[in-house]
């Protein structure tokens, strides 16, 4: 738990510094990053899937960053992007890529490797999609649009 808080603190602060976020937005970004890590790990602990846990965590980020954006007059994007980096599934992407390299170089007959690589690749894309949709969704509830697409 304390390690999780430390991880959320370090990663979101580091990304905020790299993306040159304004100084007064650093505290909310750190708060959101820690909240995202904790809620994701909490849901994973109770047996939910990685995609759904990531979606809930990024939904939390999107929802709370609306409040901070209204309060500090900074675009929602700044909070949402800096604090959602913690959720990026790099290890799955890496495993998918390694699997593809192994399939292409040798071990053509290894069926399990192909399935595993496909599994990790799909999981990467779904988690990425869950992050993006989870952030975008809460900001759209409060707006009114005058167009139809169907």
């Amino acid at each position, binding site marked *: 738990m304390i*390690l*999780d808080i*430390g*991880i959320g*603190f*370090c*990663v979101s*602060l*580091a*990304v905020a*510094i*790299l*993306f*040159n*976020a*304004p100084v007064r*937005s650093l505290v909310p970004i750190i708060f959101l990053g820690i909240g995202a*890590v904790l809620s994701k790990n909490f849901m994973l602990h109770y047996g939910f899937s990685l995609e759904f846990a990531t979606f809930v965590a990024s939904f939390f980020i999107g929802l709370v960053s609306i409040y901070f954006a209204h309060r500090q*007059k*900074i*675009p929602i*994007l*700044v909070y*949402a*992007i*800096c604090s*959602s*980096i*913690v959720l*990026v599934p*790099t*290890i799955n*992407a*890496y*495993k998918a*890529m*390694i699997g593809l*390299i*192994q399939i292409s*170089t040798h071990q053509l007959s290894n069926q399990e490797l192909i399935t595993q690589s496909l599994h990790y690749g799909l999981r990467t894309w779904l988690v*990425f*999609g869950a*992050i*993006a*949709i989870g*952030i*975008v969704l809460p900001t*759209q509830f409060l707006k009114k649009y005058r*167009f139809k*697409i169907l």
Partner: protein
Amino acid sequence: MNQEKLTIDLLSQIGKLLLQHGAETELVETSIKHAAMKLGASNLAILIFPNAILLSLPSSDRVYNTQLYKAERQDVNFRALDKVTTIIEHMDATTDRAKLLEELKHEEGLSPMYPYYLRNFMAGLGCGAFSLLFGGDWYIFLATFLASSLGFYLNGFLLKRYFNPFIAIILVSFTTTLYSGLFAFGNEAAHIAIASSILFLVPSVAFINSVNDLTKRHYTTGLVRGVRGVIISFAIAIGISLALHLLGVEKFV
């Protein structure tokens, strides 16, 4: 006439700054509209391309003033977004447009970056903390920290010399993977070090902005941003696979 030219230059500069520093299309559009409303130019037409802005303002019943501004670079700098939105907030019809335009044209002074050594340290720290998230131990943390700090230093070095950004990303991910692979060689969690040391290159802004734009029916910019994100991901993957072929793929599964 001069006043109208100043107005449209000011609005285009605002849009250009927002587009260059990683704002979504909806934000660019609403900011320009908001600023135009405050300057008293409410019947403005806006068209936003992925790397350019076209503004058109009717000046009399016969003439249209049209201006095309090109965004010269695409990077992420959230302090510039904050600055521009604050300027728009404090704008009104009596604002001195020439002075404000002069201030906005001076792009480097508008939004200073954090000091370079701090960003370098933070890149290392963030990637190291990320490796702990995936279950690495403190030795892996140290290896990731060193590798990604060195990689970030190389990134800044190459970008200062105006390398092609995609080639720079291939080189940086190659070097970072090589370093982290060598530092964590023989460790059974070496793949965690490699996977998390390239975190500072992940094109998260491009992907999130892409979904943001696509859901708000800015299809062109959304697709272009998504394609940019995919190309950056492929560049990272090329660099990693080159380095892994040197080190031996089987050792890092």
